[in-house]
């Protein structure tokens, strides 16, 4: 059993040890402080090469990539996309609004003439009340541009369908439903009538008029032949699908011909007035 003296002795030793420890710590610390005050810490710095080596390894480990690349990509991609879209849209509208026929017509006539022709055709196509004159005016127009190719005519029709003038549209809206219906029918007949010559002959064959009787159908070839003979013609009768005309040839022989209603249009006044007319006039009625 420890005595009180031992107890105190042990505590005294502990205190002595702690005091000794504190003294030692203070002593070493004073030496370190002296050293720190004099020496520069540069001596204990790792070399720059080692710094770079370690930092490079740290960056490599993460897979570091400069952000500059991404930001560069970020601004030009949407701008390029937007520019592409604008270009495509503008080209599309440009193609849509550009008068394709303008260039086609300019080959056969002056641009101003072509413009007038187009305007004239538009007005005629949509004016029901002047349907009689429409046919004639169309024929006149086509005569005014004889050099116009069949393809050009077709393209002109297509172009009309695409770019109707607002004025014409306004005129249509003022007309009654009946008139509109008639207009539509007229348009259909006009379109079919304004086909190429080959197509017209083909149409006549399909309706079966040719094999009807001895009366032959007026073909393009026949028309041209009669034109060279300086023949004249007069209206005889009107059937459901064709007109019947009488042609007086040079040798005074009268020949009957059928005129396809889809290709020709003879108005009421002409039907009543059965005078003999020139074939040129018939030609005007051919392609209305």
């Amino acid at each position: 059993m420890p005595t009180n003296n031992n107890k105190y002795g042990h505590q005294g030793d502990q205190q002595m040890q702690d005091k000794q420890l504190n003294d030692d710590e203070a002593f070493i610390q004073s030496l370190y402080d002296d050293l720190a005050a004099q020496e520069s810490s540069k001596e204990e710095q790792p070399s720059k090469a080692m710094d770079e080596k370690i930092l490079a390894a740290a960056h490599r480990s993460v897979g570091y990539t400069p952000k500059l690349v991404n930001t560069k990509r970020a601004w030009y991609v949407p701008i390029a996309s937007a520019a592409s879209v604008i270009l495509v849209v503008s080209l599309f509208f440009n193609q849509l609004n550009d008068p394709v026929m303008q260039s086609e017509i300019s080959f056969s006539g002056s641009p101003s003439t072509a413009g007038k022709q187009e305007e004239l055709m538009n007005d005629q196509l949509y004016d029901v009340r002047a349907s009689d004159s429409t046919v004639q005016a169309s024929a006149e127009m086509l005569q005014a541009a004889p050099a116009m190719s069949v393809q050009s005519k077709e393209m002109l029709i297509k172009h009309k369908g695409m770019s109707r003038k607002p004025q014409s549209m306004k005129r249509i809206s003022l007309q009654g439903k009946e008139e509109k219906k008639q207009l539509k029918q007229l348009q259909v007949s006009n379109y079919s009538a304004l086909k190429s010559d080959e197509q017209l002959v083909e149409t006549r064959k399909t309706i079966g008029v040719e094999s009807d009787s001895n009366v032959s159908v007026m073909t393009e070839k026949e028309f041209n032949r009669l034109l060279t003979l300086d023949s004249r013609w007069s209206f005889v009768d009107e059937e459901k699908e064709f007109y019947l005309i009488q042609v007086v040839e040079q040798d005074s022989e009268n020949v009957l011909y059928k005129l396809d209603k889809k290709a020709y249009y003879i108005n009421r006044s002409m039907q009543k007035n059965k005078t003999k007319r020139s074939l040129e006039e018939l030609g005007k009625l051919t392609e209305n």
Partner: protein
Amino acid sequence: MTSFIANDVDQSITDEALMLSYAKGDTGAFDVLYHRHKVAVHRFFLRQHISLAVAEELCHDTWLKVINARKTYEVSALFRTYLFTIARRVLIDFSQKKSTTNEQYFNEVVEPEIEVDDKSQTVSNHQLKQALKNEISKLTFEQKQVFLLKQDAGFTIEQIAKITEQHKEKVKSNWRYALQKMREGLSAYAN
């Protein structure tokens, strides 16, 4: 990189937070962390009485281990404790490897002690530094670790116990003996 170092004025960002940021891929966080502790780690190896080349090699190995372990890093202690635990293990691995190959890695050649007869004589910086090195090299391995971690790196006894994976009392004992030896050897330099 340089901008990050220059901007390390906000010391409120803890080492642990920086290490977690680096674990998530923020390399700038590692840059700051490295510049905060690079000198301490380098000095720790230099005071082991080994050559500069070997000290740098060990330093490099220590930081590489930190880099490679970034994804598994968890905050269980201070980052400095974690860092010096790794540094100490690197040193032990190195000493064991060298001892098996019978290579001499510690500078055995201890420079002669400087005679200071007259206490009034001014002791030069170089002399004091050399004397300190000599006295440290005379310590045992464990005493040396404890002394350097406490005196140079500024760890507490508890933190050293954690780093060295030893009992606190043993660390304290090593510290006490190391101080006694150092004082005996450096008594001539006392003012």
